[in-house]
């Protein structure tokens, strides 16, 4: 039995069909006119651009479908520029497709390798150059050049040091300490418990020395949201309840998912919503996650009042705030 399969014959290239413009002078004339119209549209675009720059005042607005209330000056500048560029390209392509030569030609490839005599000549030139520079003889230059080139190679490694330093325990601690007052953000005013009505919220930061500067990296960890509910609305265990004060509860504002500011508080449902990925936390149950991608409740800050009646932290956060990181213990 023969294993041979009958070879499929090379069908060759299909016959080249000429365009109508190649054979019919009328069609060619028509294509020429089309190209000219496209170029004229481009010219019209440029005229629109210049005209709208000069004649349309900057404060004219009108209703444009889909876009809504739109500034006429900017819209016509943009439309004019778009038309002037787009139709040049379109005309050029239409010209190439319909009128430029349409003959199929075969260009034979030649070998990429240079002829032997050229290669020999090149090697000779390099060798002569090296000999003339005297690298072989002047070893001082050779070695110092080697040293400098080697050191240049090292410099990117040194620049990699800017990827550090390692964060250490920076991610695990915030500026909150026992007795730190909660102050309004912005405004830096300490807050008394009676300043907050039921249903009120306040954005707070830890108090700093007057005139001191808060680093942005600190604000990003320290931001705390104060919320006042009716005390009977809480559904907390005894420890967490002792972290609240007269219905005022404090949570880290930094989402435990990706670190966005969680501050969409819905007063009626007592839900806190993160605007980035819709993680939803139930304030009455110690910010338990009830919807969304977040894996952990928001850290709760234990608060109380000091001798002057201002709200203060009872203790630092008992867990790192914000999103998970590699070294996080829980």
């Amino acid at each position: 039995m023969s294993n041979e399969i009958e070879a499929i014959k090379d069908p060759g290239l299909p016959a080249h069909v000429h365009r109508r413009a190649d054979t019919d002078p009328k069609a060619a004339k028509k294509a020429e006119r089309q190209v000219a119209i496209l170029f004229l549209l481009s010219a019209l675009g440029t005229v629109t651009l210049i005209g709208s720059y000069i004649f349309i005042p900057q404060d004219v607005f009108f209703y444009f479908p889909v876009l809504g209330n739109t500034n006429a000056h900017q819209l016509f500048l943009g439309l004019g520029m778009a038309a002037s560029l787009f139709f040049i390209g379109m005309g050029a392509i239409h010209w190439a497709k319909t009128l430029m030569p349409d003959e199929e030609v075969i260009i034979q490839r030649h070998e990429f390798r240079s002829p032997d005599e050229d290669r020999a000549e090149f090697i000779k030139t390099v060798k002569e150059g090296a000999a003339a520079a005297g690298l072989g003889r002047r070893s001082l230059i050779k070695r110092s050049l080697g040293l400098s080139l080697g050191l240049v190679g090292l410099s990117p490694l040194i620049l990699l040091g800017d990827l550090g330093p390692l964060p250490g325990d920076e991610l695990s601690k915030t500026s909150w300490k026992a007795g730190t007052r909660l102050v309004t953000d912005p405004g830096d005013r300490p807050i008394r418990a009676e300043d907050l009505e039921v249903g009120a919220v306040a954005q707070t930061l830890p108090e700093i020395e007057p005139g001191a500067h808060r680093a942005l990296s600190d604000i990003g960890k320290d931001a705390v949201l104060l919320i006042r509910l009716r005390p009977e609305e809480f559904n907390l265990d005894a420890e967490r309840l002792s972290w609240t004060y007269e219905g005022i509860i404090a949570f880290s504002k930094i989402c435990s998912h990706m670190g966005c500011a969680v501050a969409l508080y819905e007063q009626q449902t007592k839900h806190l919503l993160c605007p980035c990925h819709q993680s939803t936390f139930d304030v009455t149950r110690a910010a338990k996650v009830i919807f969304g991608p977040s894996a952990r409740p928001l850290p709760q800050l234990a608060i109380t009042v000091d001798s002057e009646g201002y709200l203060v932290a009872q203790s630092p956060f008992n867990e790192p705030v914000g999103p998970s990181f590699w070294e996080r213990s829980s």
Partner: protein
Amino acid sequence: MAPLLLALALFSIGTTFSVAGAATSTPLTAAERSALIDEGQRIFLKGCSSCHGLNLEGSAIAPSLIGVGAASVDFQVATGRMPVADMSQQITRKDPVYNEKEVEALAAYVSSLAPGPDVPGEESLNYERNGSTAEGGELFRTNCAMCHNFAAQGGALTQGKYAPTLMGVTPRHIYEALITGPQSMPVFSDKTITPAEKLSIIKWIKAAEAEPQLGGASLGRVGPVTEGLLVWTLGLGLLVGVAVWLAMKAR
């Protein structure tokens, strides 16, 4: 001659101000006030009591109005949210059912039974004079922008609820919303955001409202959502069309 004219001008400006100021804050006499409360009670019994109860005590479908104050009544009724037409996820702004006089009467009645936040007077709403746009912007970004959008255009909350746009809201209603916390909105107490800071927020919102769209189309000023939609549909559609045309063989 000139100093005399100046003195005359200053004098006339001063008197105009005091006369105008006096005209806007005429205190009601006791009799007028009690007539207003009676009128408010009549409107309340007819239009509100079926849900909020004959004595403001509330019911299964509507909250008690004891202690909500005149500010809350003015916000809810004058923006058309109350009386409510559609009791679904959110009570929406619509053309008000009651006129200004009737709203004032309702507010007087409700606040006569239990005290609460008062309607801010014209003189305490002079945000042009007492507010600062820069400070207002900072306060807005910290306290308001997460719900109402960075350009005060409004945004989504959970389960079909939303924070409405602040465009076209009167300064008085913005102020009242801040002190009463309507629907999902929390209360912003006067101690954590002072009245002057509230005026700054209003001034910033009014500045955002008046900001001309010099960049051309604003696309609703809601950020990457509409911008992306436009680019992914119109922009990419155009590119696909051009690519198809480029690859088409001319005949």
